[in-house]
């Protein structure tokens, strides 16, 4: 019985496929795989906007939205209606075609990434052999969309915002990819399904997730930091820095196009979180061996929600970084650590299993981390600013 519930969506799909002629079955099958993704994740976006606003409210000792519907549950609908009914303003001098295409490209790029995410056992749109590669390749389409938006608006603020956004996204894409390499090394495959399979199995009740190894943990932390920066979330939300460049690259967007940018941003966040789950947290696998009867998709989405809660928590806590801090952090801390982590994963692989392997690897992770952060801190010469003309 648990098996059936676990596979219910797969079974339903096959059952539905039985009713269509053989010639159109591939097309129909693709449709049946894609449509749920197009429904579930935007719906998750709607729920997240509400939960995020409520959570941030609580973090700041406020109630958050509680006016629309019971407990403010209808807030996403109100938001949707509002953004749909707002006037769509396009600047006179803007390049209309590119201006129109940018948000579409952003959203479709974010959605494409879901093709290789296994959201449950046997639940994946396309099991590519180079799934991880596809994911990152599609992910970098977002940069193009951002630049299209910033450039086509013919506004200096939006152009500057786009440049800033791209500088940040490219800088953090490097550690993002490097952090995931350790997993590819350990699993010996670029296929997301194979990576999840490599983490299956339990030692006692504990799962064999990659995050429970020194290099896996370091990789996970680096990946999540880079993912935050990739999805432009606080404290890395410089691209939209309202206080400095007035909403950055999407300053000239209004109404539903603006909402699309937000949708794309959140979809990107879900996708990278989903990738982090797949790479480090065992994908759809249950956290304990005695919980394997719970359906796999349930585990995937619970892990996703936990990660999103983490994102919201971080957003509620940290202030925005400065541009130089951001770049320094990416190139002088994240990048060396990610490179070192690959080396550590190699050490782990070639040392015999046992306590010594753990010790060596933990030291190899912790020592450079401390030394690097210490060193970077010492370099920062904080001094009292003297204002020559303000006195």
């Amino acid at each position: 019985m648990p098996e059936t519930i676990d596979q219910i969506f797969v079974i339903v799909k096959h059952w539905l496929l039985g009713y269509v002629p053989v010639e159109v079955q591939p097309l129909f099958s693709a449709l049946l795989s894609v449509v749920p993704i197009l429904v579930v994740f935007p719906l998750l976006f709607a729920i997240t906007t509400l939960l995020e606003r409520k959570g941030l409210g609580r973090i700041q000792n406020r109630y958050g939205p509680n006016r629309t519907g019971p407990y403010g549950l209808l807030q996403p609908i109100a938001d949707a209606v509002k953004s749909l009914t707002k006037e769509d303003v396009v600047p006179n001098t803007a390049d209309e075609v590119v201006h129109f295409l940018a948000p579409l490209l952003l959203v479709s790029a974010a959605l494409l990434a879901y093709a290789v995410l296994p959201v449950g056992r046997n639940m994946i749109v396309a099991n590519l052999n180079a799934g991880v590669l596809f994911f990152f390749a599609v992910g970098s389409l977002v940069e193009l969309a951002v630049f299209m938006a910033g450039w086509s608006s013919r506004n200096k603020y939006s152009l500057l915002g786009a440049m800033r956004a791209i500088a940040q996204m490219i800088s953090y894409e490097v550690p993002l990819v490097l952090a995931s390499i350790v997993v590819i090394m350990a699993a010996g495959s670029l296929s997301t399904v194979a990576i999840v399979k490599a983490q299956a199995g339990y030692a006692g009740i504990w799962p064999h997730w990659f995050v429970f190894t020194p290099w896996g943990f370091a990789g996970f932390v680096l990946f999540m930091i880079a993912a935050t920066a990739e999805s432009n979330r606080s404290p890395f939300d410089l691209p939209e820095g309202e206080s400095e460049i007035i909403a950055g690259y999407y300053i000239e967007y209004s109404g539903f196009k603006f909402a699309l940018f937000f949708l794309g941003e959140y979809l990107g966040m879900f996708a990278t979180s989903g990738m982090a789950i797949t790479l480090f947290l065992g994908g759809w696998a249950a956290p304990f061996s005695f919980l394997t009867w719970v359906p796999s998709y349930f585990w995937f989405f619970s892990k996703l929600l936990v990660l999103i809660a983490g994102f919201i928590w971080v957003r509620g806590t940290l202030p925005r970084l400065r541009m130089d801090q951001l770049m320094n952090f990416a190139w002088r801390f994240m990048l060396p650590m990610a490179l070192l982590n690959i080396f550590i994963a190699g050490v782990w692989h070639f040392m015999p299993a046992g306590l010594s392997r753990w010790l060596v690897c933990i030291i190899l992770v912790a020592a450079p981390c401390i030394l690097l952060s210490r060193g970077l801190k010492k370099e920062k010469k904080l001094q009292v600013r003297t204002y020559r003309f303000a006195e």
Partner: protein
Amino acid sequence: MFGEGLLKGMAETARNFLGSYVSKDRLTTVQFPEERVAPIEASRNFPFLVYDGKDWQQGMRCVSCLICEKECPPKCIFIEKSTDKKPDATGKPQFYPAVFNIDVSVCMSCQICVEVCPFDAIKMDVAFELSTDNRFDDLLWDKQRLAKSNEYYGKIHPTEAAAVDAQLAEGRAKLEAKSKVTTEAKAVGAAVPSAQTVSGATE
């Protein structure tokens, strides 16, 4: 060390998050239309015209001197002076504003009109729910809408109103004393030949 302050901050926000569900005192939000904070005495946002007594038309202190109209920086006061005089609350004949309009949407709440009014006729209100869906009628307030009683003024700005009342009373008392003196002097002047009888009568 690296990350320590970060963890401290995260712990603080987590405490806020959980604490706001446990203890209500943490929540500083006032759920506005249902809950309200008591009006703050020092708050001011829009002028109104003070009247004494019961009748707003007769009791209006404004004598249409046009000073506030001239001084208002965004020029949002419109006054039309009356051609006749009518008795005010004290029974003294005065000019009165035939039209006194303020454009709420233009007023910048600077309180200059209040500062310059020599008759304490215009004061600042604390009411803040001024929104309306009719931009052309509901934002130009006329004399009647602007008129509010002195009691109301006493309620929203008690300290200030007491001072104003005391000053007005003092002024009136002085005026009365002066007029008494003048009337007496007049009486004396008129009755110089029969001063004896007058003093005899008063005794």
